[in-house]
């Protein structure tokens, strides 16, 4: 399986460098969503470009739902806890027949978030498994924790691709096949690449 490496193209490479750098630098204005409102407004724009690239209406609605869950998760879990720069980097590139969309944050990451409710978690890999497979909220007693499970279910049923990394753990779904792995280049927060290719 050809898993996205985050170095496949300049868009992904730039987002990975931003998310993993020691010092915070503000992304380009058209990529930076300092607040949830900005992010919400830009998803519609992204969806429109995906449709122009050839995505069906149903696929575009699912894309919106997947991006919404991933991006809103960053805001839900990092308010007041950003490592330095608040908000997310949200960028995309759509060409006829293909789209790549990246969402990255400089937040506390999945492991630290879930440790608040499950202190025994000790690795990024374990945390990522919990995040995508179990209905456990990082903000208990609030009722949360379904978003990434829903994302997984959509990916496995509907053919959008994802590479998601937090810390040094990575989860990918390519052509409805899952892959869990550990990588050497860590990101403190999270980075997600959602991609689509016309069949």
């Amino acid at each position, binding site marked *: 399986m050809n898993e996205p490496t985050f170095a496949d193209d300049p868009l992904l490479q730039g987002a990975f460098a931003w998310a993993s750098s020691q010092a915070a630098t503000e992304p380009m204005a058209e990529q930076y969503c300092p607040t*949830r409102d900005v992010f*919400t407004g830009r*998803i*519609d724009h992204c969806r429109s470009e995906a449709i122009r690239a050839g995505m069906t209406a*149903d696929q575009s*609605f*699912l894309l*919106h*739902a997947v991006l*919404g*869950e991933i991006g*809103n998760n960053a805001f*839900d879990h990092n308010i007041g806890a950003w490592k330095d720069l608040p908000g997310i980097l949200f960028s995309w590139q759509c060409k006829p027949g293909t789209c790549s969309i990246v969402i990255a944050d400089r937040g506390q990451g999945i492991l630290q978030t879930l440790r608040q409710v499950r202190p025994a978690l000790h690795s990024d890999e374990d945390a990522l498994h919990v995040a995508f497979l179990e209905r456990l909220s990082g903000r208990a007693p609030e*009722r*949360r924790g*379904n*978003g990434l*499970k*829903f994302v997984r*279910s*959509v990916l496995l*049923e509907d053919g959008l691709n994802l590479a998601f990394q937090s810390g040094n753990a990575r989860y990918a779904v390519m052509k409805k096949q899952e892959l869990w792995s550990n990588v050497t280049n860590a990101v403190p927060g999270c980075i997600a690449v959602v991609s689509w290719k016309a069949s």
Partner: protein
Amino acid sequence: MESVMTIEMRKVGTILDSRPAGREAYLAIISRIPIAQVDVISGEFRDIVIDFAGVEVLTPSFADEFITSIAEAHGGHVRLIHTQDNITVRKTLAFLREEWGEKVLME
């Protein structure tokens, strides 16, 4: 008095995709609908109907804050209609269904 109250979600918005939006919608709606109100004739809780016609995007985050909160506050059934028109509505409601049990009915 009608025995059923209907919430038309398209009047809340066609893009329903975040927890804060779901929470805000719940707080706005809850003051306007007779949650936990008993029908004077039948003596039973009045059903609440949530109509998803016209909704383009629904996510579990929004649905969890909105539908689950209404179901918890309401004594009667919550019935969901036009649940198959949009793919995200269909998938989100199917995904959350097991958590709601028989109190939330999907049509």
